[in-house]
């Protein structure tokens, strides 16, 4: 939509930071605006799904530790 020159492409860590920001639900307006210009939606979806899997596995791991210690 924008006619401005394309901003720099986001690195893996930029995308990860945006996804983790989403998981907590907190993101600065300026970062959000910057994300929209630089993030690749496909990368966001892939990292989002991977982060969700890691999130699930972390809980599963915590549960296993708790159950085995009883």
């Amino acid at each position: 939509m924008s006619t401005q020159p394309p901003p720099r492409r986001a690195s893996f860590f930029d995308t990860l930071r945006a996804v983790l920001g989403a998981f907590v639900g907190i993101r600065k307006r300026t970062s959000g605006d910057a994300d929209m210009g630089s993030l690749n939606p496909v990368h966001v979806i892939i990292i989002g799904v991977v982060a969700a899997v890691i999130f699930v596995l972390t809980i599963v791991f915590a549960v296993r530790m708790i159950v085995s210690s009883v």
Partner: protein
Amino acid sequence: MASIPGHADAGHGHEHEHHHPTGFMRWVTTTNHKDIGSMYLWFSFAMFLVGGVMALVIRAELFKPGLQFVEPEFFNQMTTLHGLIMVFGAIMPAFVGFANWQIPLMIGASDMAFARMNNWSFWLLPPAGTLLVLSLFMPGGSGGVGWTLYPPLSTQMGIGMDFMIFAVHILGMSSIMGSINIVTTILNMRAPGMTLMKMPLFCWTWLITAYLVIAVMPVLAGAVTMILCDRHFGTSFFNAAGGGDPVLYQHVFWFFGHPEVYIIAIPAFGVVSQIIPAFSRKPLFGYASMVYATSSIAILSFIVWAHHMYTTGMPVAGQLYFMYATMLIAIPTGVKVFNWVATLYRGSLSFEAPMLFSLGFLFLFTLGGFSGLVLSMTAVDVQLHDTYYVVAHFHYVMVAGALFSAFGGVYYWLPKWTGHMYDEGLAKLHFWLSLIFFNVTFFVQHFLGLAGMPRRIPDYAPQFAEFNMISSIGAFGFGLTQLLFLYVVIKCIKGGPKAAAKPWDGAEGLEWTVPSPAPYHTFETPPVVK
């Protein structure tokens, strides 16, 4: 939010006659997003009244212990149809109605992307609603299985159950088509300069909701199709005697059912996120946070489904997993509540009806969220499962959450839709009566649940009598109050003080740049957003 340049020509003065049928055929053949939005809203209100009458049958029967008015079988059919009609016939189409009316106006599009499919998605609804109601008149009546349609009961019911299954199929198709339309419209038809992060939050919430609908409606369709196969085609998906498992259905159903909660709640968040900034005369606090939190709620809603089934025999590890995951999902939702409160903070507040409904939403939805947290704890839920505590919890989320937000949205945009201001005094009366009667109806149900009264029963032990009587009185008050809403809306359509293009001084967005009432065709030439 988006800064809007001067748009004196937004309506483009297209007053000339367009070639479309008039009278009844106008509504049958229309592809206009405003017509279709209106039809969605009227349909959902009609279904809201039908489902509401069913709720009143339930509450009349529960007014006193013992059986007074209806047979237990009919009572069960009422609870089932009340749930299905309110979820699929009233709340979901209401927000699709808002989406149809508002999304093209908000993003500066001339119409929805697939205008004919839009017509088809609406016109699937009346047959589906009719099927649901007709199921009552079949031999054996409708399916008295609860809105979740759990087997083995749902594989044993009469032909009314098949009507319900087909109704759910049709409603699901309608929702999927509506969602495809919304996604395509938002992604492809935004006006020049309307970047995603400039979109009103309502559009964002619908974009995310539409993806959820596309993801989970086929799951529900699959679940009810398996029931249909078990009923008629000799399969044993859910029949233990044939090697199946009824608990499988519960997993599949709630894999749909939990995201469904967010399908209902997220557009409501969107409406409230439009109203609160307008009447606080401040931009929404944490716009980017809201977008991110909504996206993550959508993803996380897929990994918590079995908290609806703690008592179905799950390993302790499974219970713990779903308990932790459910508690964690409260964090992004909590962020949203803080953002709305921060938007109010030091705002120049005024309390017209849309704002009152939004504040009612904020307070009562948070209360419903907290009772949800109580229920997320497995040890507590085992006690409260299938009691009136659960009924109280989800009515705080569905009625005080989604319905209050929908009422707020109707009052907020009614001047734009009709060109007239509604009767503010009556609208405020509608709010206060709704607020009081809602709490009279549902707050006491927390006590009933804590005391152990099961849900979905037509008769109960005498110690529950007082709270049930109070709840029933509240329910009749709440139901009658909604006739006042109907009166206010009809009065506003018929006349009233002329509404300005932007009747709310704090409101922002492209929809307020077109005249009120919004012309039949808007933004045929896309506006340019700075």
